[in-house]
C-alpha cells in the first residue's frame, strides 16, 4: 500500500543552520504516527514543509502520492494543526471556520454547518460568536484542532497539540485524536513520551535534523528497557558481575559509585520477572536500593538515542 506520507532526502537550511538533513521517512496509511525529538530537532520544520509553509532546500514530501508543492491537488485531503499559527484576534471564531470550510469547497450553508459541527466535536459550541482573542489558551488550541478536522482530510498533521495545556485539556485532545484515527493517518508531534506511547502505533525519533530511529511502537519499546538504580552504598564489583550475568540484563552502566543504569532485554510480559531477578540479586549481596526508576521503554530508548535528559532539552 502506498504510504500516506513519503519524505525523500528532505533538507532545509536557514542561512547556516541545518534544520533538516537528508530525512527519509515513510508513514503508513491509517496509522497514528508519533514524531519525537528534543527542541530544535526539526519536527516543526518537517511539518511546515509538508504543509507548504516552507520550501525545502532539497528533497521532497509526498502526501497520498502527491508532491506537497501542488497543494491544490491535496485540497480537502491534507489538514494540519500548526504550532504557532494565530487566528485573527478580533473576528468571531465561527466566521473564520466558515471561511476555511468554503475554501475546502463547501457552499455557504454547508460551510456553516461544518463549522458548527467541528466546534461541537471539540466541545466548544458556545464560543462560536466569540472573537479569537477572548478565548483561553486551551480553548484556542481546541478551536485550532477543530479546523484540522474540518472536512474529511485523510492525512492530518498535529504539531504539539497538547503543548501548554492543563492535564484536563490535554486529555480531551488525546481522546479526540484517538477518536478520529479510524480512517485517517495522523502524524502527531510531542515532547510527552508517555502520551506518544499511549496513543501512537508508530514512532519516529528525530534529533539534530536527522531520523535516528523509526518503526512501530512495539518494535521500539520492546527492544530495550532501562532501570536506573540509586544505592545507599557503593556497588561492589561482585554484585556488578552478578547483575551483568543475569540473562535479562543486556548491559550495566555505572554513572557513579552509588548509581547505575541497567539495560534490560525484557518485553512487557516478563518485565516483572526481570525486576524480581534484579531485586533478588541485589538482596543476595545485602544491597538495598535508595530508589529505582523503571524507565518507560520509549523514554529509555529516547534517552539512549538522543543522549539527553528528558525535559525537552534542546537538541545540541
Amino acid at each position: 500500500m502506498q504510504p500516506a506520507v513519503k519524505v525523500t532526502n528532505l533538507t532545509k537550511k536557514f542561512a547556516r543552520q541545518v534544520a533538516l538533513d537528508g530525512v527519509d521517512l515513510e508513514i503508513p496509511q491509517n496509522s497514528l504516527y508519533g514524531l519525537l525529538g528534543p527542541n530544535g530537532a526539526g519536527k516543526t520544520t518537517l511539518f511546515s514543509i509538508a504543509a507548504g509553509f516552507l520550501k525545502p532546500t532539497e528533497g521532497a514530501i509526498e502526501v497520498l502520492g502527491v508532491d506537497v508543492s501542488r497543494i491544490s491537488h491535496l485540497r480537502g485531503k491534507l489538514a494540519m494543526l500548526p504550532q504557532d499559527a494565530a487566528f485573527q484576534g478580533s473576528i468571531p471564531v465561527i466566521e473564520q471556520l466558515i471561511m476555511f470550510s468554503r475554501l475546502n469547497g463547501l457552499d455557504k450553508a454547508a460551510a456553516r454547518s461544518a463549522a458548527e459541527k467541528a466546534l461541537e466535536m471539540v466541545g466548544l459550541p458556545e464560543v462560536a460568536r466569540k472573537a479569537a482573542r477572548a478565548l483561553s489558551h486551551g480553548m484556542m488550541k481546541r478551536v485550532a484542532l477543530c479546523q484540522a478536522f474540518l472536512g474529511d482530510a485523510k492525512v492530518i498533521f498535529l504539531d504539539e497539540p497538547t503543548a501548554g495545556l492543563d492535564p484536563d485539556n490535554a486529555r480531551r485532545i488525546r481522546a479526540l485524536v484517538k477518536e478520529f484515527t479510524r480512517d485517517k493517518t495522523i502524524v502527531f508531534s510531542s515532547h510527552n513520551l508517555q502520551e506518544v506511547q499511549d496513543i501512537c502505533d508508530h514512532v519516529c525519533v528525530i534529533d539534530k535534523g536527522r531520523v535516528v530511529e523509526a518503526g512501530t511502537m512495539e518494535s521500539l519499546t520492546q527492544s530495550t528497557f532501562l532501570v536506573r538504580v540509586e544505592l545507599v552504598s557503593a556497588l561492589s564489583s561482585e554484585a556488578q558481575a552478578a547483575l551483568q550475568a543475569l540473562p535479562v540484563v543486556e548491559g550495566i552502566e555505572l554513572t557513579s559509585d552509588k548509581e547505575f543504569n541497567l539495560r534490560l532485554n525484557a518485553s512487557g510480559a516478563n518485565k516483572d520477572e526481570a525486576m524480581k531477578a534484579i531485586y533478588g540479586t541485589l538482596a543476595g549481596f545485602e544491597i538495598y536500593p535508595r530508589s529505582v526508576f523503571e524507565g518507560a521503554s520509549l523514554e529509555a530508548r529516547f534517552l539512549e538515542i538522543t543522549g539527553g535528559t528528558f525535559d525537552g532539552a534542546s537538541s545540541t
Partner: protein
Amino acid sequence: MEPTTSTVARSWSLQHVGIIALYSMRFALRSGGGLMFLLIFLTVGLSVASLFITPLEELVKMDGPDGMNTAELSMTILESDMVSQAVEWITNSDSAQSEYLLKDNPALLSAILLILLIAVPFTTCFGAFNQTSGDIASRGLRYLLLRTERANIFLGRFVGVLLFTIVSVIGTMLVILLYVQFKVGAYPGMDLWAWGFQGLTAVFFLSLPYIALCAWISCMLDTPFGSLAICLLISGFSLAILYLLKLTLITSMKVDPESLDWVFKTVPWGWKYELLHGSPVVRITAILAMLGFTVGFLFLGLRHFNKRDL
C-alpha cells in the same frame, strides 16, 4: 544549493480569490483597520474640498448680503487668468487643458480633484499596507495555505483591498459632490455629477498601482508597521529622487526642462493629471499606464510571495 523555486504562473481559482477577497473586506471592517482607512480617505477628501470652499464662504461673509454669493465668487475666482496659469503650471499642460478643467467642467471640482490626486498615493498606503504582512507575522496565513494556492491568497487580498478602496473612493466623492452641489450650488447637477464620475475614475486608477505596490511590499515584510513605513517611503521618496534628478539635469547639465517630462512618467504619480485630460487618447494612455504599473507590481509581489517561507 539554492532553495527550490516555484513558477510565477501558478494555478489559481477565481472562486478562491473571490472568497478570500470577500472575507478580507469583511474582516478589515470588523478589525477596525478598514474603518480607519475609510475615515482617513474621507478626512483627506473633505479637507481638500474645504481648502477651496471655506475661503470662498469667508469671502462671501466679508462681502456682505449685497455682494456675490458663493457660486458667483467661485466662478469669478476659479475661472480667472491667474488661476488658469496656476493650473497650467501644476498640471504641466497648455491653455487648452486648463480651459478644459476650469471652463468646460466645474472649476471648483477640478481644483479639488487636482489637489486630491496629489494625496491619493499616500492615502492609499494607509488602506493597503497590511494585505499580508500582519498575517505572515502571526502565521495566520498558514490556515489558508493548507486550503488554497499562494497565488489565490495574494490576489484575493489584493482584490479585497481594491474593492474596499473603491467603496472608500465612491463614499468620499459622494460626500464632496453633495457638499459642492448644496453648499456652493454653482453648477448644473448633471455637469457636476458627470465630472465627479470622471474624477472618481481618475482617483481609482491612480490608487490601483499603489495598492499593487503595497501588496508587493506587504508580502516582503513581516511587520505591518514596517510595511506601512516602507510603502509611504517608496511612494514619497521615489518622487523626491526624481525631482532631484530632474533638478540636477537642469542645473548641472543644462538640459532643457521640457525634454525631461518623461522623468515623472516612470512612476504612476507622474500620470495623475493625464487621467483628467481633455483628450480621450491621453486618458486611455494614462489608464493603460496605470494598469501596466499594477500588473508589474503584482507580478513582482506574486513571484516573491510564491518563493518565500511563510
